[in-house]
């Protein structure tokens, strides 16, 4: 093993110790940036406790920008007396909060509304994934 003295490398030990600290700051900043952007990498409804399929990659803001979805309530909707309210949105609520609300709703019915909303629009717009394996991708690291 070769040991360099401070003089040979021109770097003081004191400064070397600064490197991990700077790294930590950069890491923390990027994490905060990611969170403030609100970009969630997966749809992860807490109602699915034991998922049967790989998680669905969904970069929220990037997806909606690419797909040109400006209205939040296109997905985060609110209904009253069976009619969709154009002026309200249910941002911040999970789909399962309403779609599993009644007794005879099961996980299958929650899956149903996710699929109808996601796949339904993809079919209508002729863009975006439509097959099980295209959304529930394996080893999508």
């Amino acid at each position, binding site marked *: 093993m070769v040991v360099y003295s401070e003089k040979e490398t021109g770097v003081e030990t004191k400064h070397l110790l600064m490197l991990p600290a700077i790294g930590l700051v950069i890491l923390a900043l990027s994490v905060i940036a990611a969170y403030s952007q609100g970009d969630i990498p997966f749809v992860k409804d807490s109602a699915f406790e034991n998922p049967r399929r790989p998680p669905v990659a969904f970069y929220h803001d990037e997806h909606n920008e690419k797909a040109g979805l400006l209205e939040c309530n296109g997905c985060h909707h609110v209904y009253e007396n069976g009619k969709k309210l154009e002026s309200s949105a249910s941002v911040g609520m999970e789909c399962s909060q309403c779609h599993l609300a009644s007794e005879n709703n099961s996980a299958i019915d929650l899956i149903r509304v996710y699929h109808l909303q996601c796949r339904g629009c993809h079919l209508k717009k002729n863009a975006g994934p439509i097959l099980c*394996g295209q959304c529930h991708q394996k080893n999508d690291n």
Partner: protein
Amino acid sequence: MHAIYEIVSGPMVWLAAIIFILGSLYRLIFMGRLAAKKDPMVFSYLSVYYSLRSIFHWIIPFASVNMRKHPIMTVVAFAFHICLFAVPIFLCAHIILINEAWQVKWWYLPNPIADVMTLIVIGACIFFLGRRLLLREVRYLTTFSDFLILAGVAAPFVTGFWSYHQYPGHETAAILHIISGEIILVMIPFTRLSHMLFFPFLRGYAGSEFGAVRNAVDW
């Protein structure tokens, strides 16, 4: 991809279902008419009791002498037929799609079990293929259409397994999976797969004949 998916998962499903139902009705009615013409007494001595007894006897593994003579074939055939019907009807993914279309749902198999049962169907198809190729007495009776039917039965299971496990090309496999399921549905009434339709009547016929003869009051 979107256009193909919509055709294959929409109008083609209806077309396949209608051909299957009308084709099956046609075959059953035609066969009934033929039986009535060739043997006018056939319906009068068909007995519900002996029919059910014979059907029951033949759906219990090893209940019949013939099955006891061929133990391996019996085990494979029973495992094959159970999985063949249980997997498509009780597969979670199928029920999800049916619920999306009609809002009906029923009990489903856990995915790992459906996976093993799919492999049983594929394995049994390979066994049947080997039997047709290697056993002289079976090869003698085999025609080309037997191989086609075997391939037709295996295809939805191979493509389903392929797309579930997302092996390379799984998108194509998923489309082929839907198409091959529709093809097999259309094949049932018009090929030897129609034994699915005729089995109850065949057993009913044989059962009534034997039951009635053996228990007939001998004047």
